[in-house]
């Protein structure tokens, strides 16, 4: 390995939002041919740093050096022209355009100034094959699940990266096989001398792929370390500013489930064009995990149970009664709640405050007439901000100004507030830092113990195993098998997903 050259350097960068010092005197060094992990808990300022670095946000002060020269990117387009390509947190693609257009926007192959659509589609097809995605590139992006969109965003970033590739939580909604695929691609790029910034909350991934780590906390830099020199416990301490309490691995939930009566029974439900003949049972106080690959239909099961998609066949029984669901409100009335996967479009109500986002579901169930007094709203918000450690100055901040992970916590709080009989969590820990992650897993367990039933989708099999009493494996929108008890290990689930 030759001596690596410094590609990008940030010195004493500050960024202030009204009311928040998001970044305070942060330094960052990025060398050619390295994977540099940028770590920190939710709201630490990682995404902000990326945005400042790539011209998406104007910095308040500080200097940026690119290839040794001081520079200033006025817009992401300018950064892209200089050779920095970025995949921002929250898929920032255009749902209305086709996959191919998304991949090549601004770089379309042209002849005589006119775009060659056919050629573009072929190139897009090839690019995606690198990520083992064989999809119709002429279809609008909106047709694909978040995970696929995430892969497409990464493919776009990779295709355009000349010198620097920045990935902000690219693996949040990916399964382990896709993550490995991504890592293969990253290694290739590293080989070619590309510098990669990688943000994640999965520490295994950090140790798998990164060479160097920069840790942020509360908007300031804690330190820069070589990955090889930094044990996991020290890393966690650097991030959180305290030690993480070890999770006690207990199998309490399973025991409860054994004798409990069934709460939710799906009998061969089908949804036109998406699900066929799925049956499963969730008992009172039981947590059931849904596992499967991308597009295996996990999200669609959740949507069907929640009344978003209307059944074309089969029956849903809930608490012994047959449910006919036309819209989510029906499900909520029956005692079902869903924490959706697509936070930005289906979860948060951006301009409304944290308080309102938390109380809305409760209010919707009470009806418009019985308004929850503001005092109670504030108590409710304060309670959950404290309990879920949501980093915010006050409960009246618009939720869209929170960091991604903190938004996810608010959505969770919204559903906890209505205390449903069955809570469906579609990727509840997506983008959540490890401190909060541990807390959420604990929370789920305690919810089960209090008698709430859960249906949880997660790409992290370990997480599922940690709290689920039973795991249902889906493939191609059909149920493959059910695992419980001693059979229920990450290993076995993987096997079931792969073979069926």
């Amino acid at each position, binding site marked *: 390995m030759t001596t690596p050259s410094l590609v990008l350097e940030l010195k004493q960068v500050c960024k202030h939002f009204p009311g928040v010092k998001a970044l305070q005197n942060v330094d960052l060094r990025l060398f050619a041919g390295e994977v540099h992990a940028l770590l920190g808990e939710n709201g630490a300022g990682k995404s902000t740093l990326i945005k400042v670095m790539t011209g998406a946000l104007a910095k308040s002060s500080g200097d940026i050096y690119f290839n040794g020269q001081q520079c200033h990117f006025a817009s992401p*387009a300018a950064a892209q022209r200089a050779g920095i390509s970025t995949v921002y947190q929250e898929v920032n693609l255009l749902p209305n355009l086709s996959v191919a257009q998304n991949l090549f926007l*601004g770089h379309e192959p042209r002849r005589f100034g006119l775009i060659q659509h056919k050629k573009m589609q072929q190139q897009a097809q090839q690019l995606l094959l690198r990520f083992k995605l064989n999809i119709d590139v002429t279809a609008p992006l909106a047709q694909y699940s978040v995970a696929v969109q995430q892969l497409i965003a990464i493919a776009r970033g990779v295709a355009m990266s000349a010198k620097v590739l920045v990935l902000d939580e690219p693996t949040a909604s990916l399964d382990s096989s896709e993550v490995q695929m991504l890592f293969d691609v990253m290694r290739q790029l590293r080989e070619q001398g590309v510098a990669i910034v990688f943000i994640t909350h999965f520490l295994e991934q950090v140790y798998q792929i990164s060479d160097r780590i920069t840790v942020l906390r509360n908007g300031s830099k804690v330190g820069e370390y070589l990955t090889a020199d930094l044990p996991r416990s020290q890393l966690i301490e650097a991030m959180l500013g305290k030690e993480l309490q070890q999770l006690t691995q207990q199998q309490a939930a399973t025991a409860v489930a054994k004798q409990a009566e069934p709460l939710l029974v799906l009998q061969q439900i089908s949804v036109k064009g998406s699900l066929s003949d799925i049956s499963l049972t969730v008992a009172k106080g039981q947590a059931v995990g849904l596992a499967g690959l991308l597009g295996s239909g996990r999200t669609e099961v959740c949507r069907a149970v929640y009344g978003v998609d209307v059944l074309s066949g089969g029956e849903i029984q809930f608490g012994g009664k047959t449910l006919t669901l036309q819209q989510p409100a029906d499900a909520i009335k029956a005692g079902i709640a869903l924490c959706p996967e697509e936070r930005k479009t289906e979860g948060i109500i951006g301009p409304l405050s944290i308080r309102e986002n938390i109380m809305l579901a409760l209010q919707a169930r009470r009806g418009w007439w019985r308004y929850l007094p503001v005092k109670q709203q504030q108590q409710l918000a304060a309670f959950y901000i404290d309990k879920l450690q949501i980093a915010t100055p006050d409960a009246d901040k618009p939720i869209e100004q929170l960091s991604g992970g903190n938004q996810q916590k608010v959505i969770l709080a919204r559903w906890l507030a209505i205390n449903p009989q069955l809570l469906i969590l579609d990727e509840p820990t997506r983008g959540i830092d490890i401190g909060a992650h541990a807390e959420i897993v604990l929370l789920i367990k305690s919810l089960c113990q209090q008698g709430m039933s859960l249906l949880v989708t997660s790409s992290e099999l370990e997480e599922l195993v940690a709290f689920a009493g039973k795991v249902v494996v889906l493939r191609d929108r059909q149920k493959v098998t059910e695992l419980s008890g001693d059979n229920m290990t990450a290993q076995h689930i993987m096997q079931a997903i792969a073979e069926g």
Partner: protein
Amino acid sequence: MMSLRYLPLWITAALLCLLFGIGGWQFDGFASLAVVSNLFSDNAFLLIVALGMTLVIISGGIDLSVGAVIALSGVATGLLISQYQWHPLTAFALIVPAAALFGALMGVLIHVYKLQPFIVTLAGMFLARGLATTLSEESIAIDHSFYDAIAEFGFALPGGGWVGASTMIFMVLLVLVIMLMHYSRFGACVYAIGGNSQSAQLMGVPVASTTIAIYALSSVLAALAGIVFTFYTFSGYALAGVGMELDAIAAVVIGGTLLTGGSGFVIGTVLGVLLMGVIQTYIIFDGSLSSWWTKIVIGLLLFGFIVLQKVLSRRTALTTVAGSTAHG
């Protein structure tokens, strides 16, 4: 399999033919080339304006100023030709760039100062119409040999049809705008901004220059429409084109473009304008409706049409989806 994306277009076209067929069956002389060619020449200005409107709406904006810009460009044309004795072509050469500037200024207000397009262009509408009335309250007749030549220019179709200069200008502009929207990077950027301008910004789309160009282009097309309007009426009048922005918007939306931006086709807009034209022609041929029944019937026909379009595309979309999953 026919792509689902084009489905609304086909349905619109089919309904257009249906209405035309009904008219032809009901009235003598309705199903003739004369009526078809009139459809284009009588609506040439609206078609041109609607092209620009399509662009703006696909980008997620709206342009309420176009009707007033038509009036302003007409009055300016009239003044320059009749009062200052300019040659029409020199007059056009001044007016079109001026319109571009006007549109660009609105674009700047929208992008740089983050003002809402609806309101900026509403102010633009007041401004353009105010300028037009300030220039001349009275309608200005245009009398110039160039205009006579324009009126004679064209070729006849069998059955009394006539393809005139206005129709040809529209056809040329149509091809240009289709190229621009569907085959150029600029067009891709317009769709991108309409999809989500923040994401587009993050993906490296030059949002500022594109937004400004979009509004400039819309104003240019409106000014051209104003010029074509003077070919049509041989005059410039400050009250011309009142409410035409609403006609254009309606045509664009009927043509399947979403007002939220990001999706739509230029050709759909053309179908939309033609549909409204056929409805007008139908009512004229009928000739028995009083003023108020005219309004009510136009409303009802448009309503029936929009609902039919909705129902048909939903039903066909459902059956094709079901069909494809059954096969796949």
